[in-house]
């Protein structure tokens, strides 16, 4: 009985079920054929190794800081060639190995059925009790997400090529008309909520139709974005306004990248004056350590940081109550960021970070509201743009 319950989940293993919606391989798009080929290659290697009575293992490109290089000419983070072994017969890796194979089988199923799933959907699709135990294949979605990234990097496939997407996060308004999966959308008429930026924004799905915006203003959070939208900042300054709900997800970063490259729009970022804000900027500009292999499609080396700056406390005459004391962790992170190769040689950035450490406090964009509700939209950002007072 328990056996049945467990098996029903196992990807397309149930013979009677899979063919029902399976599309013949020959009719699949070329991209999917290629992905299926890589998945099969991964599986075949396991069989071959087992046939030779060897212990199966996977080589997974390392997604750690030690395996990223800063490409100084292209000004983006690139992934190095370090690989981590993931062995089935290694106590600390056995489960991850099994999970990687499960994700592989899940993706193969999605491609075969020409469907897509969210990260969370994939997690539920693959989660089940391991036969004969009380252990779950995945305890938590946070167990599953990194494994999907592992599969992406090891197969050198994009996430959308695996038919998996992240949940939407981030919105856009402004002078832009686009077509999303066949629907015409005018980003100037999106009301107070804006256009919700999808996870996959590749040209097959999102096509730019028309825009006469002059630049893109990317803000950190929804709350700040609303202020700008309500004050119709984008109308006044003829721009596109985006936010990424904190650390921008891939869809937002990819969209910014396309706006920058395809529509030749400069990208300005308005982020909090804290290590996290610096980091978000760094990710938008150079790419992230975790997704270094995607930097080419995502990074915007010419993006600029317009604020907040550590100088703003004095410059704007903020009161102490608008500040937040730096935590131990903040200080550690700030020092770490100062040593990133792409910040290391930039004097203004070193000064900026130093200044924050000397201040001993951080400031959120919202702190400007203490001066005036619309201070940030009517004075602060316009002044920075006017003076071209950015950090690079």
């Amino acid at each position: 009985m328990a056996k049945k319950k467990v098996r029903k989940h196992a990807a397309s293993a149930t013979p009677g079920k899979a063919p029902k919606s399976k599309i013949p391989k020959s009719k699949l798009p070329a991209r999917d054929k290629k992905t299926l080929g890589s998945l099969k290659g991964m599986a075949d290697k396991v069989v071959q190794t087992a046939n030779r009575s060897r212990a199966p293992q996977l080589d997974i490109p390392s997604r750690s800081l030690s395996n990223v290089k800063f490409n100084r000419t292209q000004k983006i983070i690139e992934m190095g060639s370090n690989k981590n072994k993931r062995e089935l017969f290694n106590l600390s890796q056995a489960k991850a190995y099994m999970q990687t194979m499960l994700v592989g089988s899940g993706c193969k199923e999605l491609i075969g059925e020409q469907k897509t799933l969210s990260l969370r959907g994939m997690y539920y699709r693959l989660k089940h009790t391991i036969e004969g135990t009380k252990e779950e294949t995945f305890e938590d979605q946070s167990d599953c997400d990194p494994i999907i990234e592992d599969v992406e990097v090891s197969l050198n496939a994009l996430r959308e090529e695996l038919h998996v997407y992240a949940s939407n996060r981030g919105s856009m308004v402004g002078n832009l008309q686009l077509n999303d999966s066949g629907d015409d959308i005018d980003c100037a008429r999106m009301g107070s909520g804006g256009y919700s930026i999808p996870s996959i924004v590749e040209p097959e799905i999102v096509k730019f139709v028309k825009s006469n915006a002059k630049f893109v203003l990317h803000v950190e959070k929804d709350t700040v974005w609303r202020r700008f939208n309500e004050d119709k900042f984008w109308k006044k300054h003829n721009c596109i306004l985006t936010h990424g709900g904190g650390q921008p997800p891939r869809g937002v970063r990819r969209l910014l990248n396309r706006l920058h490259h395809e529509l030749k729009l400069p990208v300005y970022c308005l982020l909090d004056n804290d290590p996290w804000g610096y980091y978000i900027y760094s990710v938008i500009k150079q790419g992230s350590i975790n997704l270094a292999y995607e930097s080419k499609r995502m990074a915007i080396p010419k993006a600029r940081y317009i604020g907040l700056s550590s100088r703003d406390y004095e410059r704007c005459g903020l009161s102490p109550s608008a500040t937040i004391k730096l935590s131990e962790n903040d200080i550690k992170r700030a020092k770490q960021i100062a040593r990133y190769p792409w910040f290391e040689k930039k004097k203004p950035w070193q000064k900026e970070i130093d200044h924050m450490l000397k201040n001993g406090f951080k400031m959120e964009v919202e702190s400007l509201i203490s001066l005036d509700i619309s201070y940030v939209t009517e004075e602060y950002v316009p002044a920075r743009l006017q003076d071209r007072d950015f950090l690079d």
Partner: protein
Amino acid sequence: MLSSAKRKRSPRKKSGEQETSDSGAGGAADGVVRARRRRRGTAESMAAKQRDISVSEFFAKNRHLLGFDNPRKALLTTVKEAVDNSLDACEEAQIVPEVWVHIEQTGESRYRVSVQDNGPGIVKRQIPLIFGKLLYGSKFHRLRMSRGQQGIGISAAGMYGKLTTGKPVKIVSKISIRKPAHYYEIEIDTKKNIPEIHNGRGNGVDFPPGEKGHQLMRKKGIAWVSHYDADKEGVDPREVRSGTRVSIEQEGRYQRGRGSVDEYLQQTAIANPHVTLHYLDPEGNETVYSRSTKTLPDEPKEIKPHPYGVEIGHLVTMLKDTDASTLAQFLTSAFSRVSPAVSRRICEGAKLSTRGSIKKIGRDEADALYQSIQKTKISAPSTDCICPIGEDLLLRGLHRVVPGEFYVASTRPPAVYRGNPFQIEVALCYGGTSVVEKVTYEVLAELLSQSDARTLRQFLVNTFDGVGAEASDKILKKAGFGSRQSPGKLKSSDIDKLHHAMQNVNLTDSHAMQVYRYANRVPLQFQQAACAITQAVTKMNWRSYGLSQSRGALPNAPVTIMVHMASVWVPFTSESKEAVAGYPEIEKELRLGLQAVGRKLGMYLRRRQKVKQEGERRSIFLRYLGEVAQAVSSINDADSKDLYEKLLRVAERKTSEADTKLDSRGKKIEETGDFGGNVLIVDQSPEALLEKGGKEQDEGQQALF
């Protein structure tokens, strides 16, 4: 009456002194107290009351000194005295011992204890003295390793029998297959400390040798095991050539558990693997502990006392008793390790002439001599007079009786305390199921009905080895009883509950270490806390050997440890021979012996841990193999079953260490070779038990290393 010389030998001398020479004073003191209340007594009136106290009378009043404190212990003491004597006699005569113990209930609180051996027997004229006179024996006056040493044992048991039932001791003894068997019914005259013979008009009765005599005895109702293996089919019974059977009827109480006859016999079997014991208990159950070796222990040598071991009083008696005429002659002939040169130095130190006449040595001279001996350097006595059990037989003995998975033994080299050679041996058994888990429902019900414990908790602690307060609380909790529940009023469904809990509770952590103490191969069952052996065990830091232990307590682990002290003279803390006194030399040897087995245990536990980890490692791999095989086959349509099988084989190879043995450093070792030569490891897996057809194992089947 005993001479003072005899009393001076043992630590019990103090009480001995009061018993006899001070007895007048004791009586007088008594008189004074009473006199104060009424009328003043005079020296004359007191003198009228002052008289000799017979040793027998004294012991009749102070029976606890000899182990007859209560009916239950009295039963044990009688068995013990008789069995110890039998084993001593057999070994001295170099006969492989076979002992029959029979306990029958003859009244509500009356039992008849009969113990027979195949020893040398006792010559006719000695029988009445041995069994009918206290302080009469062959072992007191010599320094030789033996179980008995005082000459009180068996006659005291006979006297207790007479005091509590009025029945005489019955003895059958036979010294040769061709000689008659002597039969005596003897009673001790407690006033005069002399035997009173009841049968054969004061001469005992003789039965002729051979079948004729056996038939006659049977007809008269006199029990005698005449043949070995009489009931065994297909074996031609061999006649018992010689031996002694003593039968004592006494007040007693039979109850199993700690401090019982059963425990004594079991522990005796452990320390005496060359003995076969037949035990017929009051309920008619027969238990046989068969010998696991036919080799007798080496014959202990008798030695002369070493000067350092002699106390002043004893020295005086030796001077009185000696045949030597000069002091030098006396010293060199009466003591070991005293050469003419050493005797000269002793005399010089005492400012006495070596040629001085013994006759002229008075109390003061003796004292000077004694002081000088202490100051003179004299080499240690030779120690080859001690016959230890030996590591191999310790392992066999322990394994014969205590189930476990790991056994280790260590026999220390001989050492000396106060001029007395001694030797310490330690053996240890780890693991195995405890009695608690093995006891059947029927036996449990019976034990409960016998018990006089007030609470169930007390019952568990008193009845089962290795069960302490903590373990019994665990059991009671599991069974859902309060700790004050009385054991008497349990319904059968309650007993069932208790039984179930006992079998299913995990006691390994709350299992107190079991300590079996031995002196000259005799188990010591009482006064555990007062004994130097127990103290040495609790003082050890067992945590460093992988056991859990709270400070100053016995460790909590499924461990049975046996410690044997062999010596020409074991220093007991009292006459009842229940606890060993702690001399620094003895404590040191105990510590070293315990450390030796502790280290090996630590090695074994670490290795076991490692093997267990490997096993766990394998089980983790196996857990994921099915998922991997299925995921892979869903991607490339490979045969998932075939793939699983192949991965399984790789997994087994990868974790093959789980099947082999590892030492502490994780390096492969060749079986137990690494442990050295005194270890026995028993495969504990259920498969191994099945292969061997249950717990019973042939001697040849286990490897002794």
